[in-house]
């Protein structure tokens, strides 16, 4: 448990302290030499480490639900899609954004539901 809590805590601290959160200028790409890439890369490194810790504990019997469930998580690009589809300007961006919202939603909704359907079937032996 400790091996997961500690990296999670570090990760969250970095996210909270990252310039994306602290410095609104960096968020708009306003500053000339942005520190953002470095912070983002740091977050990436921590997340990969944490991912390996978490996933290596998943038993073989749950590997299919793990795939479909983690797949649903990768539908997180929905967030970027929402902003593109709703920004209200260029037509091409709206078209691309709407397509992205649709495909990412398929990924999220389909992924979580089908994982739930599978996990519901895993039962212990009734005594």
């Amino acid at each position, binding site marked *: 448990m400790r091996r997961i809590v500690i990296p999670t805590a570090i990760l969250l601290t970095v*996210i909270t302290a*990252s310039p*994306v*959160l602290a410095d*609104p200028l960096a968020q708009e790409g306003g500053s000339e030499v*942005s520190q953002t890439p470095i912070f*983002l890369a740091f977050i*990436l490194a921590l*997340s*990969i480490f944490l*991912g390996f810790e*978490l*996933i*290596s504990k*998943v*038993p*073989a*019997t*749950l590997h*299919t*639900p*793990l*795939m479909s*469930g*983690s*797949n649903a*998580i*990768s*539908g*997180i*690009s929905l*967030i*970027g*899609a*929402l*902003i*593109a*589809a*709703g920004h*209200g300007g260029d037509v091409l*961006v709206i078209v691309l954004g*709407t397509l*992205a*919202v*649709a*495909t*990412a*939603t398929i*990924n999220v*909704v*389909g992924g*979580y539901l*089908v994982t*739930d359907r599978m*996990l519901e*079937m*895993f*039962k*212990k*032996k009734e005594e």
Partner: protein
Amino acid sequence: MSLQLSINLAYIVSSVLFIFGLKMLSSPATARRGNMLSALGMAIAVIFTLLDQNIITYQWIIVGMVIGTVVGVAAARLIAMTAMPEMVALLNGSGGLASMLVGWAEYQRNIDPSAFTAGVITLTVLIGGVTFTGSVMAWAKLSGKMDGKPILFQGQQIVNALLLLAILVCGILFTLNPATSFLILMILIGLSLILGVMSVIPIGGADMPVVISLLNSYSGLAACAAGFVIENNLLIVAGALVGASGIILTNIMCKAMNRSLGNVLFSGFGSATGGGTAVEGEAKPISAEDAYLVLEAANSVVFVPGYGLAVAQAQHAVRELGELLEHNGAEVSYAIHPVAGRMPGHMNVLLAEANVPYDQLVEMDDINPIMETVDVCIVVGANDVVNPAAREDEASPLYGMPIINVDLARTVIVLKRSMRAGFAGVENPLFFKDNTRMLFGDAKASVQGLVREFKEG
């Protein structure tokens, strides 16, 4: 600012929920709640993003979400458990496509991004595009829309190398001067889509567990790259978690086949037939009645399922036979090889669907040491994963692959349609061993035949 702050705080909550959701997948008892936590994290992220002031109109968002939800719900409800590999392949593909589109849309919003952003846009459309078409190809192979055999042609490696080179050149050109490079981005997208097709066609059907795991990883990495494009922590965290998951699974699958990832991706394994020492001897068929007598006397029975179980949809019949054997006093378990089936954990899901309790499922490394004490092993639609040539015959292409040592059990009953070789095209000496009996026919029909014998006997 305070709105932006609360959105960012919501993203942190989401990351925590994703992390704990995955943590709870470490046991079947908590897995379902874990998945719900993860879904809750996603819902929070989406709801708070909708509050973002950059979002002005909602009509297209609603259109996209309605379409996505309808398709997603229908697919998740209707898909058969045996077709789960196809479903996961398509989900991977839609995730990759979404990330690719996000990267492209971001370029259209600001066609003069920094070199860093242009670089990560390149990566996003590349990984996203490869994931999309690669997954569609994997789906076509898995669902039989396309022949499962590897597609190989003269000069394939050269074509692929040129493709990679062209992608690299386009990527550099785009990164150096994104403002005037719309056309280059389009070429890049086209090449990425072609690369996805080219990288999956030389891979055979039974190697799909590796391909799906790898594409799973790519879909995470694509989301991760998109996170760099829109400078969003949550995308990076979530994408990296998925990327790590896919890589771990890929590694497990490769180890279970004793092959390197490079060998799986490039060798066209399974296109050649033969290999290994020819097997002498004659297979001994057995009738359902005789098989019943053997099983009736057995104290311990181990089922070893393979892809044939999924093809024949025999999981329910197998569970029924298993229960009858238990009533008869035998100890019943199900031994599952890591690459049995067409995706990691495929067999476990099918048996769970048929109500086999998960504590009866055993992994390869746990069953092999006690195999000598097993009275009867029933092989249902598995072939290469129980081929003793992997242990005994150094000339065999399978040599060195860890297998379930069914041949060491006192009696082996192999359910099989015919004497055809397995996916790898390798002869299976198991069929000719003294303690092996062949029960020919469709796996489901054979198992139902045994069930009938038990009920009458």
